[in-house]
């Protein structure tokens, strides 16, 4: 513990956890108002505490460590319950608790008519507990607790509508895909233990710093394992497939978990581990390439999606790609900056989309929206701010952070220019698909009535309530609009704290994070004029995207149809998301299932193994039936397998491996 007084960091995660316990154990018997109160207070207190910490932040000696006891002491290795606070942590804490609280508030309105209200808020608080643990942890093991925990909470929240099979499957998919990422994370931890004998951040990083000769080699191996973990949680290639499906969850969940907080855990982890990554150029380039490729790839898929939440999901993947790109060119603070601004405008986009969906009683298909500008004006104006921000129009938040990333990519050595160009092109695509969403949703004529005539069944009718307003389009209540307004303001001004020096700003944000993310790679090679030029180019590109969307979806709405016909193959490729899900199905899942069937049936006589054949023998026929069954062969084949296994084992024992082959 440092000399400064205790900040009671343990309260931060434990208050939401208490909220979870209360709602999970007693919520069923509580009235809704009480459930809401418990959940909101359990997130408000940590937010206020974080604000308190922020106000006295300058007086702290950083990093501020607080140890609460020994967790594990096994032989030479031990891990503690230790929380650490530094600039990076503070930023993350503010985002998690601040945006988290707003989304809790919004959910109180959005979920008001749902079954299992208490369960929803219990899970949401559980999520906050794990997310705060993840952010505060001072060692990888504790971070992994949060890492797995947010995955679990996400699983529970996606599968919230358990009666719907698609939701349960999406939850399972998210969980299982993330297990692949966890595989990398765990392997990295084991390697840390093997090489450093500890999992504590400070002691690993000081060991690395103390050995300047350590470069590449096993550090690269560890870093690549961590990258695999990060791609799982942050939905990057190759493990992004779970995020679009995760949209089955309620919209506030998508906003909180699948846009603002949990999915950024991978970026946070890479930034946190930057000391390691700085020593491994290979790992850094991997991160940069994965990030750029994902950004571009997801943006192209977003061009043709028709489900409003899916567009946003692919957009999230794409924006996370930008953050990875920033980390990959060692501009960690830019990555974190984009993480923050993205949390503002993407949470806003999701919440506004939720408001639209709410207004349309559960409709998510943009093809049957349109003309909502007048009917839900608050939602329209707040969402407009978010669309402008994400498209990169100055001086909104998205412009500042994205421009900074592109600038760092441009000045990075090696293939930096290529990364910059792909990033720029992606920015164009981003602007296009976001304005497409904007026009389709809010402009033109209202296509809902037309669709209703065609007896269109809504893609998702999760709103159980069938009230008299079913068809009347209505603006959301203020408990939902309030968070929208706050986030809209943040989406506009949130970027100003990091206004780059090249454009006459102070980049206060970058300087603030510098002590925590000091990188060996930062080389301020660029000049002011270069930065101005690049900013100008990206602004033009964003405007071009807007113009094209205007042309396609406002001025000449028949154009997209024609284009999709003339470019049918390409259009289908995008519409089917490059058939990646199908590819994984054929390459990964089918072989596993085949092997499973082989283990069950191929190895042992068919029919005796799946339990089905027992039904016949179930009727009591006494000993005769048993003897018959025993002689029908299956016990003999079991004995046969035992004999074969024994023979194999003894052969190996006798002839041995020894020098010939050593199994590791």
């Amino acid at each position, binding site marked *: 513990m440092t000399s400064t007084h205790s900040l009671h960091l343990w309260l931060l995660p434990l208050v939401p956890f208490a909220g979870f316990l209360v709602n999970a154990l007693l919520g069923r018997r509580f009235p809704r108002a009480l459930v809401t109160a418990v959940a909101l207070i359990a997130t408000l207190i940590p937010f206020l505490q974080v604000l308190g910490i922020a106000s006295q932040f300058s007086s702290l000696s950083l990093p501020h460590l607080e140890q609460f006891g020994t967790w594990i002491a096994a032989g030479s290795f031990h891990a503690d319950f230790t929380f650490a606070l530094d600039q990076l942590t503070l930023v993350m804490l503010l985002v998690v608790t601040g945006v988290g609280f707003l989304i809790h508030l919004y959910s109180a309105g959005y979920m008001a008519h749902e079954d299992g209200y208490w369960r929803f808020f219990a899970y949401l608080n559980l999520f906050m507990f794990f997310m705060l643990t993840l952010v505060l942890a001072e060692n990888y093991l504790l971070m992994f607790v949060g890492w797995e*925990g947010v995955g679990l909470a996400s699983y529970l929240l996606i599968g919230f509508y358990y009666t719907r099979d698609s939701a349960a499957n999406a939850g399972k998919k998210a969980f299982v895909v993330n297990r692949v990422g966890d595989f990398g994370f765990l*392997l990295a931890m084991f390697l840390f*233990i093997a090489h450093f004998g500890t999992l504590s951040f400070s002691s690993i990083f000081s060991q690395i710093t103390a050995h300047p000769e350590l470069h590449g080699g096993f550090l690269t191996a560890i870093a690549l394992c961590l990258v695999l973990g990060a791609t799982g949680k942050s939905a990057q290639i190759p493990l992004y497939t779970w995020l679009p499906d995760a949209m089955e969850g309620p919209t506030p969940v998508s906003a909180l978990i699948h846009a603002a907080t949990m999915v950024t855990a991978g970026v946070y982890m890479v930034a946190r581990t930057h000391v390691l990554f700085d020593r491994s150029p290979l790992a850094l380039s991997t991160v940069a390439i994965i990030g750029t490729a994902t950004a571009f790839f997801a943006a192209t898929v977003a061009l043709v999606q028709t489900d409003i939440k899916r567009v946003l999901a692919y957009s999230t993947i794409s924006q996370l790609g930008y953050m990875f790109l920033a980390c990959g060119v060692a501009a960690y603070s830019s990555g974190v900056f984009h993480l923050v601004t993205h949390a503002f405008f993407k949470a806003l986009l999701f919440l506004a989309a939720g408001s639209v969906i709410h207004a349309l009683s559960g409709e998510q298909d943009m093809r049957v929206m349109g003309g909502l500008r007048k009917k839900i004006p608050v939602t329209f104006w707040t969402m407009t701010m978010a669309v402008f921000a994400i498209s990169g129009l100055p001086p909104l938040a998205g412009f500042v952070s994205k421009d900074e990333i592109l600038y760092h990519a441009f000045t990075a050595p090696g293939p930096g220019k290529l990364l910059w160009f792909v990033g720029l092109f992606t920015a164009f695509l981003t602007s296009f698909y976001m304005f497409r969403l904007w026009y389709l949703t809010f402009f033109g004529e209202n296509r809902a009535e037309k669709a209703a005539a065609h007896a269109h069944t809504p893609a998702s009718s999760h709103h159980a309530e069938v009230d008299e307003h079913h068809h009347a389009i209505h603006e959301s209540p203020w408990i939902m609009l309030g968070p929208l307004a706050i986030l809209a303001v943040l989406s506009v001004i949130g970027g100003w704290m990091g206004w780059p020096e090249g454009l006459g700003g102070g980049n206060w944000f970058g300087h603030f994070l510098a002590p925590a993310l000091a990188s060996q790679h930062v080389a301020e090679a660029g000049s002011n004029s270069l930065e101005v030029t690049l900013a100008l180019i990206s602004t033009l590109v964003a405007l071009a995207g807007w113009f094209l969307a205007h042309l396609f979806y406002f001025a000449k709405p028949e154009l997209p149809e024609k284009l999709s016909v003339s470019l049918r193959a390409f259009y289908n490729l995008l519409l089917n998301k490059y058939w990646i899900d199908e590819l994984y199905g054929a390459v990964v899942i089918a072989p596993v299932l085949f092997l499973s069937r082989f283990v069950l049936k191929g190895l042992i006589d068919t029919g005796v*193994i799946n*339990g089905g054949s027992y039904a016949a023998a179930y009727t009591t026929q006494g000993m005769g039936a048993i003897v018959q069954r025993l002689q029908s062969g299956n*016990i003999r084949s079991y004995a046969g397998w035992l004999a*074969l*296994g024994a023979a194999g084992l003894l052969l190996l024992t006798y002839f041995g491996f020894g020098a010939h082959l050593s199994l590791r």
Partner: protein
Amino acid sequence: MTANFQLLRILPEVILTIAGVLIMLIEPLLGHSTSRKPLGWFAVLSVFASLAASFAQLGMAAGTAYYGVIQTDAFSVFFHVLIALIVLVSLLVTIDTANANTESLGELFALMVFGAVGMMLMTSATELLLVFIGLEISSISTYIMAGFRRKNVKSTESSLKYFLLGSFATAFFLYGIALIFGATGTTDINAIASQLGTSAVPMFATIGLGMILIGLGFKVSAAPFHVWTPDAYEGAPSPVVGLMSTAPKAAAFAVLLRIVYVAFPALHAHWQPLLWLMAAFSMTIGNLGALRQQNVKRMLAYSSIAHAGYLLVAFTALSTDGIAAASFYAMSYAAMNVGIFAVVSHASGYDERLSLISDYRGLAYRSPLLGGALGFFLISLIGIPFTGGFFGKFYVFASALHSGMVWLTIIGLVNSGIAAFYYLRLLASAYSKPTNNALLDPMPRASFALLLALVITISGTLILGIVPGQILAMSHNAAVSLTSGIANPAPSATHQ
């Protein structure tokens, strides 16, 4: 050295034997309609006393008794405690599950208690013949218990299969002992290592060791000797499956640890690759087999094969940490597996009303308690942090990788990733709203015995995950006492 003092070294076993005999004698004196549950509570008390006696042995200096056939040390105490706890919870679950249709309940309690005697003896025996007798006691009692639902053909079939195949495996074990005796002239585990050093004929000893691995591999249901497991588990009564999937396995693992690390450290180049292969096959076959399984007990059977594989991974580490990790894993697996079988037993009742995964639909709505407990144990089996399941696996793989077992660690991690899939299927089913209203009938009320069982297993799983310090220290001491080869020939150390 007094006789009394020696008796202290087998006190836990003595207590249980007396209790078993008493239960056996009282049972026929009770009328037909008298409830047998008090007998069960008596058995619970006796197991508790035996648990206390095991702990008391920690106060004694490690040492042997009865001419070196038995040795109590931190290692034996660790497994004594584990076995006592498993049997304790299994007795509670049996008390909870038993109903008017249950036959021969008194005998079932007696068999559980006697079985525990055999398993405990296995863990402290240093004489292979005593290991063998302990193994037979534990196996034969399990064979009989597996067939206890006599009206059910499946149960009888399960018992017979288990018995026939088990005898086959036991024969290998016994043959192994004979070969080792032939090669070294002794069956004392502590003496074998020194005999091996001087004798020039390790080949018979090696083959003998291979035979022992086959026999014990069968008992712990490690691939390729796992084929009996799904059938045996499916037919046996659920409370018994909770017991037989953990306690005899823990005892067999303890024996395996003692044999390979105390008697045959010199032959590690032979047994390490064998265990490597058994671990890899068990994990893979277990998880793949469970993936498509529809029957819950069969799924859990395959899962137990996989967990045997994880545990074997720790064996290959060849380090004190590896032994400690294996012991720790045995305990954490026992906590969650006995727990999940407690839930399964209560939910499906003695007549096994629920068997398929789809039958569990809506369980959480019928009984939030059972649903919550099921979810908790599944999460631990998946290996989410803050549960014993996670930390057990973490410790095992960390120790394996520390010893350079890169590929085995990778295989293990991939497998534990696959495993999430089938556990989640059961979880999702239990939390789905049932389409059929009949599935919404409330569950029978949880009895005090069940609550106690759940409290023990849930708190055990949590303690192993959140504050494992005490138990880690215990397992570490166990590992140290095993490898330091105390083998105190004159157990005259003063008793404090």
